[in-house]
């Protein structure tokens, strides 16, 4: 055998025993022989045998050798293979190693090895089946989750899912938009301090209100109501009216536990079927509807009750006219009453009808749309569908419309097509601007030069059903305009030889603009959900005891005019991003330029790229810090070289009255904890080490993002070093050399 095999210790023991026994046996035999002989015979025999003793020991030695050989053979065939088989089976049992055992030794052992092999094969097959099942289940869950996320993000209603502590687990784009509109510091934190995974819903809603709704949901659940939902209307601090519908999220019931191997399952450990795991809030901002409804009600009341008095006056006066004994002077006075009241009533009806037109048309499904979006869509379709060249398209970039965009686009296309077909117009232009005739109207112009249209032509175009190529619409331009409560006419400018169709359309108000600006600028589907939070327990423990994995972090960075806050250097930009459950929440960011109210040193501009023009008109640090404070509320702060940034924040504490008192972690120090042997712990160096792509370096948000990526990768490495809690991380960081650097 080529392989060296260690000799079984039992073999040596057996050999030793055999040697001992044979020697004792030999000596006993000799003693027995000697005992039977007389002393003279004994001497004679000794004289004869004595010289041959060497031969005796040689044969004894040969005998022992034969025994050793036999024992070894015996062991090799009967004992060692089963010992080895046992060891190898141990490996298979205790580890994930999969291999075929080689049958050797006697027939029984070989048979055993084959049985082991079969068992292992069976185990592997089961394991694979199990893995496949787990994978399939995970895929299904993932699919369900993304389907849910897709569904939610397409909803025009705001949806927020919370656990029982009121922490947000899931929300959709609409909710983000709506919360932004509710935010009291909309220009800064942009509502990000109100909505975010892991944030508390109670920053928006009164805790008692939610508790009350939860209670009634729970009561309904217990009564076994089919749809145990609750509704409430609340006004926010920003004065908006919200209608909120609450639906319970039930905890998943334990599957009926079969009596498993001796596990003492008490019935009480099974989850009661009505247990709540959290709740879903569906929010509608009904401020606008409410206002419109109030106007409608006033209008209806004005028309009914307001007219009653006038009618009463008239009716009474007319009935008086029937009396034959009426004096002429009095008769004239009664007639005057009737004339007077009829006139007043006519005016009232006139007023109401114009108001009614405005109020009732708002029931059309009009949507808010950015004017430039409408124009670019119209321009594209005019060029593609009609082959007309678009000369110019100018729009007020901040103008929002409240329109039904499809029919407006159709009207523009239809009119352009007729210009092309009937007057051979080859170029048109589009123009959109606020109307001079009213704050809430916008002028949309379709402009061409050359051909002059008669009023009759315009009229007929206005009332012809719209037809573009083979596509026909039942609507006319006039109906489209009426639908918007707008107006339509032709204007011409003789000086420039230009003419245009003008649409007067409703503009949207500022509130709605904000809603949609944010809606439009987040086209991608964000990573909003994090169901793991259902498992988060109330954070009653002191933060230091909390595992890092359970904390939420605000990773931030500042750009400054220089390196000496004590000597008047100021923050000019702050960027921050949140990290929750080891994940970077790229959608929940804080990004704000700050007016330093001082000169920006020209030599620093190449570093941060922020020019004095860029900070002009931006808020000052005293306005920005409260927003950052709100954004970072309830989280642990993380920064690279945190001492530097913290120093800038701390110097403003007295002025703002806001202290950033939460714990702080420094990625520079944590990197030094994890990789004590490395020379550099600059952000670039660490990023390179972790293979983090650096984009937008030296913008506050860019650096905050890189820092956050680095931080996320540091967490598992810290865990390997036995650093699991916040307290351990802070302690370790403190002990590193770099902790002594003070700014």
């Amino acid at each position, binding site marked *: 055998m080529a392989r060296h095999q260690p000799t079984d210790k039992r073999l040596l023991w057996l050999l030793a025993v055999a040697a001992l026994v044979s020697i004792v046996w030999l000596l006993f035999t000799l003693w027995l022989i000697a005992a039977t002989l007389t002393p003279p015979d004994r001497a004679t025999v000794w004289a004869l045998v004595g010289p041959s003793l060497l031969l005796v020991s040689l044969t004894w030695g040969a005998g022992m050798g034969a025994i050793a050989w036999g024992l070894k053979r015996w062991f090799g065939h009967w004992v060692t293979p089963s010992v080895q088989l046992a060891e190898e089976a141990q490996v298979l049992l205790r580890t994930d190693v999969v291999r075929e055992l080689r049958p050797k030794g006697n027939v029984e052992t070989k048979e055993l090895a084959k049985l082991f092999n079969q068992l292992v094969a069976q185990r592997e097959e089961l394991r694979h089946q199990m893995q496949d099942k787990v994978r399939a289940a995970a895929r299904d869950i993932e699919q369900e989750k993304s389907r849910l996320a897709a569904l939610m993000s397409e909803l025009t209603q705001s949806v927020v899912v919370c656990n029982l502590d009121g922490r947000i687990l899931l929300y959709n784009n609409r909710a983000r938009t709506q919360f932004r509109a509710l935010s009291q510091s909309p220009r800064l934190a942009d509502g990000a301090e109100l909505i975010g995974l892991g944030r508390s819903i109670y920053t928006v809603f009164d805790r008692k209100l939610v508790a009350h709704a939860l209670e009634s949901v729970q009561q309904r659940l217990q009564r076994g109501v089919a749809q145990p939902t609750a509704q409430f209307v609340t006004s926010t601090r920003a004065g908006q009216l919200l209608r909120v519908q609450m639906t319970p999220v039930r905890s998943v019931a334990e599957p009926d536990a079969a009596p498993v191997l001796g596990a003492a399952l008490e019935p009480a450990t099974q989850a009661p079927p009505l247990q709540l795991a959290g709740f879903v809030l569906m929010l509608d901002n009904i401020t606008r509807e409410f206002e419109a409804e109030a106007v409608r009600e006033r209008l209806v009341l004005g028309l009914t*009750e307001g007219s*009653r*008095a006038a009618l*009463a*006056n008239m009716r009474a006066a007319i009935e*008086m006219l029937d*009396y034959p004994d009426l004096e002429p002077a009095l008769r004239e006075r*009664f007639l005057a009453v009737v004339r007077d009241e009829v006139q007043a009533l006519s005016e009232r009806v006139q007023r109401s009808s114009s108001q009614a037109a405005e109020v009732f048309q708002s029931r059309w499904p009009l949507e808010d749309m950015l004017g430039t979006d409408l124009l670019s869509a119209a321009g594209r379709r005019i060029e593609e569908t009609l082959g007309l060249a678009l000369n110019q398209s100018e729009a007020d970039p901040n103008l929002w419309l409240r329109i039904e965009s499809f029919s407006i686009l159709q009207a523009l296309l239809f009119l352009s097509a007729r210009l092309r077909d009937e007057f051979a117009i080859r170029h048109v232009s589009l123009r959109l601007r606020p109307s001079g005739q009213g704050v809430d109207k916008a002028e949309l112009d379709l402009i061409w030069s050359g051909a002059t249209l008669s009023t009759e032509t315009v009229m007929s175009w206005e009332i012809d059903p719209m037809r573009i190529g083979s596509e026909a619409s039942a609507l006319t331009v006039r109906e489209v305009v009426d639908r918007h409560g707008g107006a339509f006419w032709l204007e011409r400018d003789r000086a420039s030889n230009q003419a245009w169709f003008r649409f007067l359309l409703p503009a949207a108000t500022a509130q709605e603009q904000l809603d949609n600006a944010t809606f439009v600028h987040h086209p991608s589907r964000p990573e909003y959900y994090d169901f793991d939070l259902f498992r988060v327990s109330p954070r009653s423990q002191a933060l230091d005891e909390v595992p890092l994995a359970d904390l939420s972090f605000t990773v931030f960075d500042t750009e400054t005019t220089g390196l000496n806050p004590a000597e008047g250097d100021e923050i000019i930009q702050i960027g921050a991003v949140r990290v929750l459950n080891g994940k970077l929440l790229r959608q929940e960011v804080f990004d704000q330029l700050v007016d330093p109210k001082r000169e920006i040193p020209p030599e620093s501009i190449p570093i941060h790229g922020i020019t004095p023009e860029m900070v002009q008109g931006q808020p000052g640090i005293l306005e920005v810090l409260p927003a950052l404070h709100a954004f970072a509320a309830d989280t642990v702060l993380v920064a690279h070289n945190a001492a530097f940034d913290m120093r800038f924040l701390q110097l403003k504490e007295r002025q703002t009255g806001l202290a950033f008192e939460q714990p702080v972690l420094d990625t520079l120090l944590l990197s030094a904890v994890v990789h004590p042997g490395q020379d550099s712990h600059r952000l670039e160096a660490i990023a390179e080490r972790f293979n983090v792509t650096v984009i937008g370096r030296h913008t506050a948000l860019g650096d905050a993002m890189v820092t956050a990526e680095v931080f996320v990768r540091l967490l598992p490495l810290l865990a390997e070093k036995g650093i699991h809690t916040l307290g351990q991380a802070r302690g370790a960081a403190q002990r590193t050399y770099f902790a002594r650097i003070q700014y």
Partner: protein
Amino acid sequence: MNPTLLIVDDEPNILLSLEFLMKREGYQVHLARDGVEALEAIAALRPDLVLLDVMMPRKTGFEVCQEVRADEALKATRILMLTAKGRDTDVAKGLALGADAYMTKPFSTKELVEKVRQMLLSNR
């Protein structure tokens, strides 16, 4: 002696008709143009019946009604409310505050005359 009537309304156009109508029925008619004037007139003239509008300046008909009913001395005064507020809730409120009858505008003058006559009779 003929019964005394107080007609309270802020609109001269209805006062004219009502005054003519009630005088023609032979009542002694007095006029008031708002809630405060009405209360003063009621206290001074002790009318048998008040035709009271609801929507008026200074004091509404509801308030006038309430104050009259609070005064034990004016117990005998009948109040007929005339109002443009025609909802069930308004009728209920008027009656709850002590009006003896309630007519919504516009009303038929014939019915009004009939109603007034009935109320004055039941007063006796």
